[in-house]
């Protein structure tokens, strides 16, 4: 346990990379047009609500603190308890009007923000299909050219400045995609297709997380989001299209044989090998990703060992079974997986 925690703590600064501490997974990230619009609208709302709150508190304090003699108050002791201050009626009407105006202003601001977000969503340049699974993300980069269509998992790469539409599906229960630094969330619902659009504006590494309770390991259903320059993005895409590299050392070869013929291949796909399962994350370029098990832990040799050996203790309830590999097989499998850059 403590080793895992240590490993995670050690990698985080690395993961944070260029982006600052708080903006990694935060509404204040302002890393895409959508989140910037959110922040503008949010501060407008905060200002109006702040004024209203100040008014209420001022009236409360005034009402409680204002000094009046027994004879002045409209209370039962003076027998005037059914009367009230002559201006109170007018004030009530004024207060109602103020609430009405405030709400109308906020509703209109909200409506226009919503419209402008919807407009931004219409000129998509890139289409990605994201499918939620208990508890990982299946990601397909769509292309008109079938040979360019690419599948990966748990790590989303987005080109900066390019409007990207993400189509949202679910393979099992309801999930919700939430990348706070980029913008709002959208549910992934079985039997329906939703979509969400981002125009990333800041290069960096961010983190998204499932926001709709989806079962035991809901807390560990996260994804790494890499916003990069367009050339870097294209380079990454091209690299991801490559099949897995062939094993070179005897140890890697032993691992390759176990992984592609053994139990792993029933669920996982590794491009260019006989392993072609579809119910678990694609492993073709596993070692090129920054995290393991839907961002449960950072990618490292130690964590790979731990994960392959006993996923159930690292992410209890996860669908990947603990097989109980003998040490030599474990060495071989990890050695092979590490080649999947």
């Amino acid at each position, binding site marked *: 346990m403590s080793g895992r925690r240590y490993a995670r703590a050690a990698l985080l600064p690395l993961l944070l990379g260029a982006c600052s501490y708080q903006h990694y997974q935060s509404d204040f990230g302002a890393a895409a047009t959508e989140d910037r619009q959110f922040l503008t609208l949010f501060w407008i709302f905060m200002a109006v609500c702040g004024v209203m709150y100040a008014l209420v508190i001022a009236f409360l304090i005034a009402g409680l603190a204002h000094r009046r003699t027994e004879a002045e108050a409209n209370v039962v002791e003076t027998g005037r308890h059914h009367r009230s201050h002559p201006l109170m009626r007018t004030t009530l009407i004024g207060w109602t009007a103020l*609430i009405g105006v405030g709400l109308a202003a906020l509703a209109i601001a909200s409506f226009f923000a919503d419209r402008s977000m919807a407009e931004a969503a219409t000129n998509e340049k890139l289409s990605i299909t994201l499918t939620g699974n208990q508890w990982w993300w299946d990601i397909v980069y769509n292309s008109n050219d079938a040979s360019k269509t690419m599948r990966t998992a748990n790590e989303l790469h987005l080109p900066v400045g390019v409007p990207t539409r993400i189509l949202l599906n679910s393979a099992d229960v309801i999930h919700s995609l939430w990348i706070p630094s980029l913008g709002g969330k959208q549910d992934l619902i079985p039997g329906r297709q939703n979509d969400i659009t981002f125009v990333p504006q800041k290069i960096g590494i961010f983190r998204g997380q499932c926001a709709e309770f989806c079962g035991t390991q809901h807390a560990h259903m996260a994804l790494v989001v890499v916003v990069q320059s367009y050339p870097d993005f294209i380079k990454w895409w091209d690299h991801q299209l490559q099949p897995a590299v062939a094993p070179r050392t005897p140890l890697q070869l032993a691992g390759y044989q176990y992984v592609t013929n053994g139990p792993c291949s029933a669920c996982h796909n590794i491009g260019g090998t006989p392993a072609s399962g579809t119910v678990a994350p694609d492993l073709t370029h596993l070692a090129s990703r920054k995290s393991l098990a839907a961002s449960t832990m950072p990618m490292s040799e130690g964590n790979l060992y731990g994960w392959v050996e006993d996923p159930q203790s690292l992410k209890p309830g996860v669908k990947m079974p603990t097989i109980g590999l003998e040490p030599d097989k474990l060495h071989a499998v990890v050695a092979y997986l590490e080649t999947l850059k």
Partner: protein
Amino acid sequence: MTDVRADTFDAMPTRESERERVEAENRRLAEERKRIARDGPKLKGAKLAARLDAAWNRPPGIIGWLATVDHKEIGRRYILTALGFLVLGGIMALIMRLQLAKPDNGMIGAERYNQLFSMHGSTMMFLFAVPVMEGVAVYMIPLMLGTRSTAFPRLNAFSYFMYLFGGLMLWIAFVLNMAPDVGWFEYTPLSGPQYSPGKHTDIWAQMVTYTEVAALAAAVVLVCTILKARAPGMTLARMPLFAWAMLVVGIMIIFAMPAVALVTTVLLIPDRLVGTQFFNAAEGGDALLFQHMFWFFGHPEVYIIFLPATGFVSVIVETFCRRPVFAHPVVVLALISTGILSFGLWVHHMFATGLPRVGYSFFTAASMSVSIPTGLQIFCWLATMWDGKPRFQVPMLYVVGFIVTFVIGGLTGVILASVPLDLQLHDTYFVVAHFHYVLIGGAVFPLLGIFTYWYPKITGRMMSETLGKIGFWLVFLGFHTTFLPMHWSGMLGMPRRVYTYPAGLGLELPNLISTIGSFVLAFGVVLFVVNGVLSLYRGVIAGPNPWGAASLEWATSSPPPVYNFEHIPIVESSTPLWDLDGELPVATGLRVDQKEMLLTTVVAAAPDLREPVPQASLWPFIAACAVGLVFAASIFSAWAVPFGLIPCGIALIAWFWPKDMQRKPEPEIS
């Protein structure tokens, strides 16, 4: 059971001969009335009390305890049981806060944590918040209205037992490790047969059914009591605001609760038990159907909890500012419009589900507009404080705490009503903060205030003012320390319902502060309970009206006798005890040898009928056992329904078996 027309309210005669006949008949009846023993000038004081006691007391012993139909006994049980569940739900919350005190904490695992938050939510919503409001109302409403009993007292007893059984089932399941583990909302398909094996979800769904049946029964009882049992002269315009709040809430329950009972019992359980596919998209069902039906109940539910609390606030503000609440009709209209609007907001829980955007705009506008009636109510209370002379005793402190806290919750609610904002904040700790501000600040603070306020009426003794004030400050400061940082953690990216969170997101500090605050809050609640227990023995004897309040519950002794009032009071203003010209005027002429209450007309509260009140009976308890058995057994087999209907039928037939059609002759004064 025959209803006896009040003698004075015979139909107007149309012909001369008819009138003569009626007058002769009236004279004869008046002669007869002079001799028979009813409460009145000839029968009052100790002699009357002894007779009423004999007529109203339930049989002693355990049988009598189970058979009672006294609304005060039932209300007390409701309140105590709900407080027990509050403590249990609170303990769940503390364990969760401990787990979240630091990142990557291994104190409790995912499965246990998921059970904890499911139990916390289900307990607080279904077993604490709604029942405690109903319990207070069941106890207090007849006293405030100046009547002897609720309408349908046996239904009232049945309601309590159903509620108790539902709560027990849930918590016994928790002890047996069969507790629900997919939240208090149980969205399909996660709660469907494929993803929730075992009986966890079924237990939850049936617990909901129990409590909904109980809530519906209590709502019917309250609505009928409020509409028909008010003291003569208490027109709708003079009715206390708490009664108005409960009238609106009762009607809301009647419209909202069937939706959740339907979606859990009629749709979800068959999906799980007999293979229907209502929510299975693969077979042509729809997962979102569940959310629509759940929130059609779920959003009014929030106001079902909040509106009684506004009633409490009105009661406290009136008494402690020494004047009626400013603009009584405005407050009433605000209550009614909140009740109506609350049925048009449910989709704001579903902004992220991808429904059409035009529809969203409508729900944004509707959600925001709720703040108009609520803002009006706040204004009316503040205006009352301005015009009156506030006394800062514990109940009033809770009202001030309520305003400071609840308004924040209301304003974050306006923020969440906006679609672009909600899409970021939905299902994060920001929302957790928001609804705890609304539910604890908006409902629990007034509840603690009203407990302190009505404690002397229920027990006959005052709660300690010093302990009460310390308790208030602990609760108030603990609350804000716990929940204010949650706005922050939500915006820093913390989703709800996660059993742990990674280090490095900036979530460490706000979570640690929240955990510390939660223990301060819990300590304040413990102090409140200790105060309540100690004051039972040490409290100052209260007398009938310790706060100098205006409404009718203070016109009888503390605690009230089993028949509530020796004579039925007559009401001539909205603050009857403040507008007295000498003695409280009373209506007389109810039977003393049998339980009887006065029914009045719905709007004008003119005397209408003398209504016999049922005796204590075991059948509501037996019926609740039978119905409870069917619900529990149907978790395991669909056959429980047809076979279980047999004992249910027997119990109900016995319960409703016609009584003697001939009323016993009334005794004469001896």
